[in-house]
Every structure is written in structure tokens, then in C-alpha cells.
């Protein structure tokens, strides 16, 4: 800005500017004007407050809505079923039950049919509809845990069917409500914490679904992501910050990293589909492919966080190490990196949290199949928690709404824990040089 612009409006030759009478602040016009200005000030301030509060209210509303329906997903209703094992006469021997073939033997003994039969006996005609299709699994586990009950009568709590489950919470059909009232009168119905929700995988019946399969898939995918993205991210941050000469090549690297950080995540899914599945022929839906795709996505996050952390280490430390004869590699690996590590870790945790919540790229590489057993290896078909939420959200059954919200609560809890850890680390290790 040149000086003549600064004094625009002022006569150039020393001519006397027209004198103005001093403002009289006590006139009515002035007082009105001041009041108007202060009112505008208050309005503006209130608008700002409203913006903050409304944004926060939306978050609270979201969380409360999820909690309201999700907390019910953590409960399940059990019906106590009395079984007369002696009259059932299951054709299984104690030796079979002790061995690894117990599941097969009990399935072969038509336990499922016999359990529904017992329900018809206990609750009258149509009684088998009160218990879940998977109720016989609870009976099977009870027999495996204690084969001696095969010689006695036993009352075993089994999961209720979805209709009864909803009715027990006051949301079912009138017919189901009547059944619940009858069972409650006999003290045969109870509501408890849904532990199997944390140990099972996906299923077609909302009463039998669990998140363990998806959670394990998520953990395996995250492990691959971490193992790939962390070393590569840290090493490239070190190179760019400590060694890179300032030339066209390193500019290109920098521009690539900055742009990768802003590329839509679904594009990484397209890359994974075309390169990892199409060109390299890696298996679809596998944690290893998901992990590689997400690693490419969060690597820029780690690089940027790492560079900032390295930049924050004061030059005096480098100079001191160089001064006593350390090589530049020693300076970095013995002094700079350990000091920058808390910052790098914070960035890494934030990046991992982002990868954990990511859905779109994983849909592209086929992680949306129905998978009813947790993955055993890194190339097994698997699903991850956000994708499981997405798949359940498409299910129409009333029971799935609760399960979806419950899974969302688990995901949010894990993410919040990760973010809290990042904040804690940042506060604990933050150093002012």
C-alpha cells in the first residue's frame, strides 16, 4: 500500500481542513444511535452463542437418540424353559460330549426339534414361537457345560423370540403382550444384559446377532493399517523434514501428500478395487486389502503430524548432537525422533480413529458380504464395525434398529476412547522448549 492511499481525502497542499464542531454525545439523536449500536452488538453476540449452542445441541440430540434405542439393544429377554431330558432320551454318549464332536453329536440328535417340542409342552400350543430360533444353542451349551443334567429335569433360560422380546419392553403386539403377562405371572421371563452381543457374529435373526465378528475384522484391519502406515509415515516425515533438499522433486512429494490428505475416501476404495483386487489379484473382502487401502488413506495424516512434531524439536538439540560428533542419522534416530514421538503418536491415534470409522472405501473392496463367522486369518472374508452398522441399517426388522444403535454406541465408545487417549498423550508429553 503506498502512502498516498493512506492519506486519501486529505488535501495535499497544507490547506486548512474544514473544522467540525465537537460531537455532542448527549443529544437524543446520538443517544439513540448508541443504543442501536449496542443492541446490534447484543444481537450479534446472541447469534454467535446460538450457533455454538445449536451445534452442540445437535450432537447431544444425536447421542441421546442413539442411546435411547441403543441401550435396549444391550438387553435381552430370556424365557426359562423347563426340559425333561430323561424323556427326551438324547442319543448321545458321555464320551461324545467330552470329545470335540459334541456340537455335531447334539445337532445330530435333533436337539433343535426337541427343544421346540419342549417349548410347546411347557407353554401350550404355539409355545415354540416364544423362544428364539437359536434357543437350542443355549440348551446345547448348558449340556456341554454339565453333561450330568441329561439324567435330570432342568430349567434353562433361553433367549426369547424377537416378538416376545419387544413385547417384554412394552413395544410388541397385543397378542405378544398377553403372552408376556402370562409368562411373567409364572415368573418364567427375565431381562438381562446381552452378553452374547459381544461374542457372536452376524446372523439373520436380530435376536442372535453380535458384533464380535465385525469387531475382530476391524481389529485385524487396523493392525494391517498401523503396521503399514506408521513406519512409512514416520520415515517419510523424517526425510521431508530433516534431509529433503529443496527442489522440484521434494515439492512434488509435498504437494502429493497435501492433496492425498484431501482426496475423498471413496477414491481410495476405487484405487484398492482397481489395483489390489484387479491388478494384484488379492482376495476380496479380506482385512489385508482393507488395511492396505486405509493405510494409504491415513498415511498423509501421519506424515503431516510427524512433520509438525519434528519441526517442534529445537535446532539446539540437533546442533549439540552434531557438535559431539554424531552423524545426521544418529542425530535423528537417537535424539530428534524420541523427542518428537509423543506428537507423532497423537497424530497416529487420530489417523487410526479416522480409519476405524471409515466405511466407503471398504464397501468398494467388497467388505459388505454377509459373514456369519469371525475371520481367522488376514485373507479370510471379513467385515468391519462401520460396515456392519451399514448392513444392519438396511434391515427392516424392528429388532435390527436397536442392534444398529447398540453397535453405533460401541463404535462411538471406542472412537471416544481413542480421541481421549490422544488428548491425554498430548497434554502429558507436551513440552515447551
Amino acid at each position, binding site marked *: 500500500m503506498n502512502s498516498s492511499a493512506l492519506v486519501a481525502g486529505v488535501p495535499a497542499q497544507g490547506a486548512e481542513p474544514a473544522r467540525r464542531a465537537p460531537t455532542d454525545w448527549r443529544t437524543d439523536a446520538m443517544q439513540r444511535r448508541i443504543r442501536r*449500536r449496542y443492541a*446490534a*452488538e447484543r444481537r*450479534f*453476540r446472541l447469534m*454467535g*452463542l*446460538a*450457533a*455454538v449452542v445449536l*451445534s*452442540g445441541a*445437535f*450432537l447431544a440430540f*444425536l447421542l441421546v*437418540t*442413539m442411546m435411547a434405542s441403543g441401550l435396549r439393544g444391550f438387553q435381552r429377554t430370556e424365557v426359562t424353559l423347563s426340559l425333561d431330558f430323561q424323556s427326551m432320551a438324547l442319543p448321545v454318549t458321555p464320551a461324545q460330549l467330552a470329545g470335540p464332536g459334541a456340537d455335531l453329536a447334539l445337532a445330530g440328535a435333533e436337539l433343535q426339534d426337541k427343544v421346540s417340542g419342549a417349548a410347546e409342552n411347557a407353554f401350550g400350543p404355539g409355545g415354540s414361537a416364544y423362544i428364539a430360533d437359536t434357543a437350542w444353542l443355549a440348551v446345547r451349551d448348558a449340556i456341554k457345560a454339565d453333561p450330568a443334567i441329561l439324567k435330570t429335569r432342568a430349567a434353562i433360560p433361553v433367549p426369547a423370540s424377537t416378538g416376545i422380546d419387544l413385547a417384554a419392553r412394552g413395544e410388541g403386539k397385543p397378542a405378544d403382550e398377553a403372552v408376556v403377562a402370562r409368562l411373567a405371572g409364572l415368573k418364567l421371563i427375565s431381562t438381562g444384559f446381552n452378553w452374547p452381543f459381544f461374542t457372536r457374529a452376524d446372523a439373520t435373526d436380530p435376536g442372535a446377532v453380535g458384533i464380535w465378528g465385525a469387531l475382530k475384522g476391524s481389529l485385524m484391519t487396523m493392525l494391517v493399517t498401523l503396521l503399514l502406515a506408521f513406519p*512409512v509415515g514416520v*520415515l*517419510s516425515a523424517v*526425510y*521431508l523434514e530433516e534431509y529433503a533438499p529443496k527442489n522440484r522433486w521434494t515439492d*512434488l*512429494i509435498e504437494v*502429493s501428500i*497435501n*492433496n*492425498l490428505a*484431501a*482426496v*475423498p*475416501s*471413496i*477414491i*481410495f476404495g*476405487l*484405487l484398492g478395487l*482397481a*489395483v489390489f483386487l*484387479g491388478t494384484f*489379484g488379492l*482376495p476380496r473382502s479380506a482385512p489385508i486389502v482393507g488395511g492396505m487401502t486405509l493405510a494409504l488413506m491415513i*498415511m*498423509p495424516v501421519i*506424515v503431516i503430524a510427524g512433520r509438525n512434531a519434528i519441526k517442534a524439536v529445537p535446532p539446539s538439540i540437533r546442533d549439540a548432537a552434531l557438535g559431539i560428533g554424531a552423524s545426521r*542419522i544418529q542425530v535423528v534416530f537417537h535424539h530428534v525422533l524420541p523427542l518428537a514421538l509423543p506428537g507423532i503418536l497423537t497424530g497416529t491415534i487420530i489417523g487410526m480413529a479416522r480409519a476405524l*470409522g*471409515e*466405511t*466407503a472405501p471398504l*464397501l*468398494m473392496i467388497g467388505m459388505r458380504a454377509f459373514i456369519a463367522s469371525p475371520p481367522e486369518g488376514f485373507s479370510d472374508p471379513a467385515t468391519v464395525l*462401520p460396515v456392519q*452398522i*451399514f448392513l444392519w*441399517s438396511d434391515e427392516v426388522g424392528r429388532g435390527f434398529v436397536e442392534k444398529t444403535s447398540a453397535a453405533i454406541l460401541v463404535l*462411538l465408545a471406542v*472412537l*471416544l476412547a481413542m*480421541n481421549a487417549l490422544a488428548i491425554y498423550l498430548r497434554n502429558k508429553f507436551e513440552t515447551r522448549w
Partner: protein
Amino acid sequence: MTPFALFVIIVGLGLIGWLTARTRALAQAATSPVRPNSLPGQHGSYVALWTVLPALAFLALWSAISPSLITASALADPAAGVLPATGYERDMILNEARSLASGSAYGAFFTQSEALAPAFAAAMAKFRWIGAIVALLLAFAGGAFAYTRVSPSLRARTRVERGVMLILLVASLIAILTTLGIFLSLVFESVRFFRIVPVTDFLFGTHWSPQIISAKDPGASLGAVPLFWGTFFIGAVIAMIVAIPFGLMSAIYLTQYAQPGFRRWMKPALEMLAGVPTVVYGYFAALTVGPAIRQVAVALGMPYASSESALSAGLVMGVMIIPFVSSMADDSIAAVPTSMRDGSLAMGATTNETIRKVLLPAALPGVVAGILLAVSRAIGETMIVVMAASGAATITLNPFESATTVTKQIVDLLTGEAEFDSPKTLAAFALGLTLFAITFLLNVVALNVVKKYREAYE
């Protein structure tokens, strides 16, 4: 031998190399008349690098080229005679035979693939052994070469550090390779698409219905204008109508008015909005916001309103973007020199006059750049629109009507069993390329604006 076992063996060899070379250097140092140039451990690292690096580099290369060699070798087998000469079925059979041979499939759909699987299994075993043997030979040769050179006069430290520098450089090149990979894979598939469908039909056509693609004129039902419009309408109009005022006013309030205690709690709370996974927003939009907006629309006299309206997706997306806009605005307002603010206040201006007439104009380039980045994020956002927007491609100005976006269509086109050669699948890559180009441009412009602006005050 599995790749993992091979990796462990090579690393183990490297460790052995490190130990033996260190022992040798120690022994030499004890008897040598001159002071050795490097520490024994540096000699060890020198040998370990020579053992591990060439072998692993070869393995990486081999895993990239061996699949095509395996296919070629299996096709040379007489069992390949049963294959149809070209086309989609041939690829399906080849893929199935490959997964049968590697044990990742449980049953075969095509009988031909069962016949072909043994040939694939043999070729896979052969090439896996070739790879393992060459890698191990390289490891031994590299290690032996380096080991013979261990002597007090060897400048092991310098050489090791040069090797480490090489590793660092390669790590930072991965960013370029990823960008290149994205670009090439999108361009490659898009070129195949544009061979079937003319570019002009795709870019300027106004009819989008990929479910029915006529073989005679595939371009007629693949006009992407409704998608571009829907993306712009939801991401750049509706979402920004929510995000800009809320984000900007939040930033202003938190930086200029709020008590420190309030700010300390509200800022992370707003940032949590950005940390919520988008699939959760999508679920929320589809389950709660969408039906509510539909009821509002019905009350306003639109009996056929959809619960998958552009408004519900855009509204929720706007909320998601709020913290993004507010932190960018926060940064750029904080970057305005305090002297400008103090000067304005000293002249008797009220705080809001200072903000509106001094701070915001000075911070404008940064705010605009932040908004551009927010737009780029909104139009690339996928899960919210997948779950809350509809698949119907309409060009409309009514926010209560349904609209669809580029990202939603990419997901729809690529999920389900789609063949890799049909215009339907390839269209997803063409859409991806468009999306990449648009967001890339927005990002470059925004980053340049930020850069220029930052320099102005420092």
C-alpha cells in the same frame, strides 16, 4: 513356502548377518594395528542391510509380476483348451480357478474352472518356489559379499547411513506412487468407458438410468448431469447453507466473546462432531431426520414427499462440516494481527463492528479457502448420501424432492456382482475420475489461497 515364512527367514538371516559381522569386526579390532573406522555394530548393520534389502526388493517386485506369469503359464497348459476364447465368462472362469487353486474358494460354479485349477495350482507352486529360491540366493549373496568386505578400514557407518537415506527416500515416494496409482487406475478404466460411451454423452447427457443400458446406444442412459447437479445441490448448496453461518458464527463467538472456561469445553465438543463416523450420521439422517422432514413437507402440502430428500442428506452433512468451517475460520481470524483489532476498538467501534468491518475482511481469503475445502469434503462425502439420499437422478431445485450424488452412484454401481467390462462398472470409474478432478482443483485453489494469505501477514 508362505510369503510370511519367507519374510521371517530373510529377516532372521539379516539378524545372523548382523551378529556374525559384529563378532568379526570385534575380533579384527582387537588385533588391528590401526583404529577401525566404524563401530562393530555399524559393520553388523552394513551386512544386515545387504542381506535383507535386495531380497525384499526382489520379493516386492516378484509379487507384482508373478500373478501375470502364473496366468500365462496356466494358460499354456492343455487344460486351458476348455476355455471360451474371449470375454467375460473366460475371466470369471480364470478367477474362479485361481481362487480354487489358492484354496480361498469352497466350491466351483464352472466345471471348466475345476479342470483348470490343478494347472493353476502347479503354476502357483512353481512360481512361488522360484521366488523363494531367488530371494534366498539374493540374501545369501548379498550377505556374503558384505561379510567379506568387513575390515577395519571399511567405512561401514557412511555406507549404512546412505542405505538408511535410501529407505527414507523410498518411504516418501509412496505418496507420489499412491497419487499416480489413483490417477492411472481411474484414467485407465475411464478410457475403456469412453471407448464405449462418448465423452459428450456422459458429460452433457441429462438422463441417468444405469439399470437399463441399451447395447445400441449406451450413452443415452448414462448422462451424468443429474448426478453433478445433485452433488452440487446437496454438498455445495444445502450443506453450506447450514455449515457456513453456523461454523462462522461459532468461530467468531468462541474466539471473540466466549469465556475461557466455556471455550475450553465447547471447542472439543464441536470437534467431536467431526469425529463421529459418517455412517452414524447416515443412519441418523435415514432414521430420524429424513422421516421428520417428510412430515414437514406433507404438512406444507406436498403429499408425495420422499423421506430420502435432498434436504435431509444436505442438512446432516452440513452439521458434519460445521467444525471444519469453524476451525478454518478460527485459524484465519487468529492470524489477523491484534493491532488491527485493537486499533478498531480504540476508535470506538463496538466488538461486532470490529469483527464485521475489520477482522472478517482481513481474514476473508482464509475463510474462503476454508469454505472451498469444506465444499470439496462435502461433495466427496459418501456414507451420508448413500444412506439418506435416494438413487433417483432428478434435476430439481426443490429440497424436499429426492436427488442423488456422484458418490452414491459409485457405490450403487460397484456393489453387487458386477463384471469388470460392462459400461455400468466402468461408469463408476469415470464418475470417480470426475470427482477426483473436481476435488483436486478445489483443494489446489484453496491451498494456494491459504498460502498467499498466510504470507501477507507474516
